[in-house]
């Protein structure tokens, strides 16, 4: 995977909100999938768990440790006006280590999802409506343990990553959710390479992001 890659999606005027939303969530899960297969991301996840002293087989401990690390070290910054930035998990880790971390909720989910996914957990993006107005406006991470736990049983666990004071399972008040699961077995090319092959290269656009007016930085 290219190091330090950023996708910049600029919305064309007149693109329907639902179309924007569908394009954005697809890119989001694609980047989680790319990150969870990245050896550097897995190395970072192992380092986080070892530094936190999490014992082997402690699934909830692993999820909590990675959640805390992302909440504490990644810095929330809004995207530019009418522009959606997506970073690779590798880029997000590098920025944290360089002291230049900046990302919004979708970047937090890319990083958290990639780290947990690289450790074998099923992960996905949980798009939520936090204003109770029928518009999906925020994204959280969702994961689960393989063994039932006393706290969560075998349920899916929503994780709010942008606020350090939120524990796993907690969220802001929300009225609706739209889950989109990452699939580690995907055989597609990494999203940052798609512009180098196929139709995406001919047009200079990612096939999905092209609908949104995507331009590669």
């Amino acid at each position, binding site marked *: 995977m290219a190091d330090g890659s950023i996708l910049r999606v600029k919305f064309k005027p007149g693109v329907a909100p639902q179309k924007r939303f569908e394009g954005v969530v697809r890119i989001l899960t694609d980047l989680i999938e790319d990150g969870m297969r990245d050896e550097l991301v897995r190395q970072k996840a192992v380092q986080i768990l070892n530094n936190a002293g999490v014992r082997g087989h402690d699934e909830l401990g692993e999820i909590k440790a990675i959640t805390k690390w992302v909440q504490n070290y990644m810095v929330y910054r*809004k995207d530019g006006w009418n522009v959606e930035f997506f970073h690779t998990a590798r880029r997000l880790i590098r920025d944290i280590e360089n002291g230049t971390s900046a990302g919004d909720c979708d970047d937090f989910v890319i990083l958290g999802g990639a780290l947990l996914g690289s450790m074998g957990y099923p992960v996905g993006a949980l798009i939520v409506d*936090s204003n*109770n107005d029928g518009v*999906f406006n925020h994204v959280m991470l969702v994961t689960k343990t393989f063994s039932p736990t006393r706290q969560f049983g075998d349920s*899916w666990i*929503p994780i709010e990553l942008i606020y350090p004071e939120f524990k796993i399972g*907690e969220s802001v*008040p929300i009225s609706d959710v739209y889950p989109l*699961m990452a699939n580690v077995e995907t055989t597609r090319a990494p999203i940052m390479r798609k512009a180098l092959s196929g139709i995406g290269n001919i047009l200079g656009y990612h096939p999905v992001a092209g609908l949104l007016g995507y331009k590669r930085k």
Partner: protein
Amino acid sequence: MGVFSELGNSRSIGSIGAIPKSDHAYKILQAPKFKDMGDVNWSTGETWGVLISGAVVGVATVLLFNRYYK
């Protein structure tokens, strides 16, 4: 700002006070329809496309093999 920008009803929360916490997301995810998230979704056209294409290629391969090597 991007698509996901209006978190937590900022119109009513403003910049003062703590961000309200809830277990709404967790409770919503207890619904039976979310039980099988991440499993293979047999209802998608993509799934059936792969299965039927695979079957067609497999049958064609067997037919051609039998025609030329028996």
